[in-house]
């Protein structure tokens, strides 16, 4: 019995705290390219200092946050009606609709991103269609722009938005909406004063599930995006692989973690409060 209780903690220590400690230790080390591994352990804050003084990193942070935030917003705007429609569908239909949302996960993530490359390239399927149909003779190229990154992130993470929203909306007692309408609320105010606040936990969970991985996203901007878009995931990759600077790469990783712990704690507190309520 004790073993069963200890297991999750053991898991946490071995697969979370230990690696985290390692990365933290690395972030405080000094870069030493002539060593293997290329670090000199110590207590140096040089990597962090560089991270906060060089405006290139700041720009990378800002553009990562901006892209993650807009993608999250688009996911929310697309995902909410989807989740709402699924939650209001007849119970026998819901599993089918949910399945359709989850279905893309059955294909490898990488293959799906490559498929988008095929769609969005200069001579890709989309442009071929536009030219063939005569809608646009010179459609330009979406691949390699920030549009493509947004598209990729929204496409890849939409299910992470829909599922928690669905869970929240499915629990919603629809007679509350009837009550609101009965008390004189038009559909929009009824939505804003009843549905929205009651689905807030789902909104927060969905946004975090999309926002957090989107900030550190590497594959999508690398494959779909242009070189003009700087994202922190790419910076981390560059520091680790191209510059072989493990301390700086670790410092980026630690900052990413700290940045994202804030919203998670906020979410937890909100969850706690809603638990106390009921």
């Amino acid at each position, binding site marked *: 019995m004790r073993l069963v209780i200890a297991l999750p903690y053991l898991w946490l220590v071995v697969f979370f705290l230990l690696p985290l400690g390692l990365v933290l230790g690395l972030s405080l080390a000094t870069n030493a390219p002539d060593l293997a591994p290329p670090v000199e352990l110590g207590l140096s804050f040089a990597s962090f200092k560089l991270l906060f003084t060089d405006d290139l990193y700041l720009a990378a942070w800002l553009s990562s946050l901006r892209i993650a935030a807009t993608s999250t917003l688009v996911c929310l705007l697309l995902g909410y009606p989807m989740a709402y429609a699924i939650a209001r569908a007849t119970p026998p239909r819901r599993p089918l609709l949910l399945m359709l949302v989850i279905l893309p996960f059955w294909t490898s993530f990488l293959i799906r991103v490559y498929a988008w490359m095929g769609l969005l390239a200069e001579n890709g399927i989309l442009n071929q269609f536009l030219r063939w149909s005569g809608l646009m003779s010179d459609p330009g190229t979406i691949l390699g722009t920030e549009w493509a990154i947004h598209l990729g992130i929204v496409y890849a993470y939409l299910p992470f938005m829909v599922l928690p929203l669905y869970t929240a909306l499915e629990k919603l*007692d629809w007679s509350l909406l*009837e*009550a609101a*309408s*009965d*008390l*004189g609320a038009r559909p929009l105010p*009824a939505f804003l004063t*009843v549905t929205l606040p009651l689905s807030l936990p789902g909104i927060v969970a969905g946004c975090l599930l999309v926002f957090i991985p989107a900030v550190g996203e590497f594959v999508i901007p690398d494959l779909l995006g242009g070189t003009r878009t700087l994202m922190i995931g790419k910076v981390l990759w560059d520091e680790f692989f191209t510059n072989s600077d493990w301390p700086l790469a670790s410092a980026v990783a630690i900052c990413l973690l700290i940045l994202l712990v804030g919203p998670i704690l906020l979410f937890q507190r909100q969850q706690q409060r809603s638990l106390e309520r009921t």
Partner: protein
Amino acid sequence: MSGPIVKIDGVAKSFGAVQAVAGVDLEIARGELFALLGGSGCGKTTLLRMLAGFETPDSGRIVIDGQDMTGVPPHLRPVNMMFQSYALFPHLDVANNVGYGLKREGVAKTEIAERVAAALALVKLDGLGARRPAQLSGGQRQRVALARALVKRPKLLLLDEPLAALDRKLREGTRFELVRLQEQLELTFVMVTHDQEEAMGMASRLAVMKDGRIVQTGTPHDVYERPATRFVADFIGVANILQTAPRRWLALRPEKIVLAANRPATAHAATGKIVDIAYEGDRSLYRVAIGNGPVMLVAQMNTERVRESHRRGDAVWLGWSDDAGQPLEE
């Protein structure tokens, strides 16, 4: 304005292949406490939801206070509803629940506060405005739902099984409370219930529904004493239904029958044997077999304390007067 507050003209509604309401005509007068009574699936709830505007009639029309409700959405109807589940907003406190409808109307904040406080006082929930619904008992929640509907001063209050979610003891008190409020506020209540005792005890008038149709409308007294059909006679209270001729029956209430050792001096009499006795304290119910014919239920008040009047197996006489029974043709 005079005239009925509610006028229902040939309203029908189907869900797929199921006909929930099959052509109902009904008028409800101002100040009535009107009950729609029937078993599950009889269409009473659908009818109520059509009054509120949550369902649209397939045909026919509903007029409330002289205004045709066809195409009028729920939020524009001069009607409020108390839901069976109460449907209180879990994320709002009691005061905001009660004030919700006033806020939507754009009533000034100070007025909202006053009216909410008055409504809470009316249902005896003074001082609980800051609580959340989850922190209230079942009876308190029911009263919040009532206050929330009343605070809007509706022309018509709809109540969907208002007592069903309460336990038995609480139900009794609340029944009188609802009637008191209805009389005090001079409102029209339309309530839906499956409980005939509840309907009889509260309603000034009621409609018995079956298979989407109204079978009989009248005061509780009318419906009890003069049931129109065998179904009503059986559904409202208990009745012995005797076939008197082909397609002709007589509904005879158990308490309208005299039970005696010797032939009573009534217009009608029959002999039989007691096969069963249920002692209920204030009265006893006897099942009496008439020859090889029907078994009749007879109720006698136990007016004497010492002696048991009859025993199982006793041969007895049953008697009833000419006007004790209601003749039925259907």
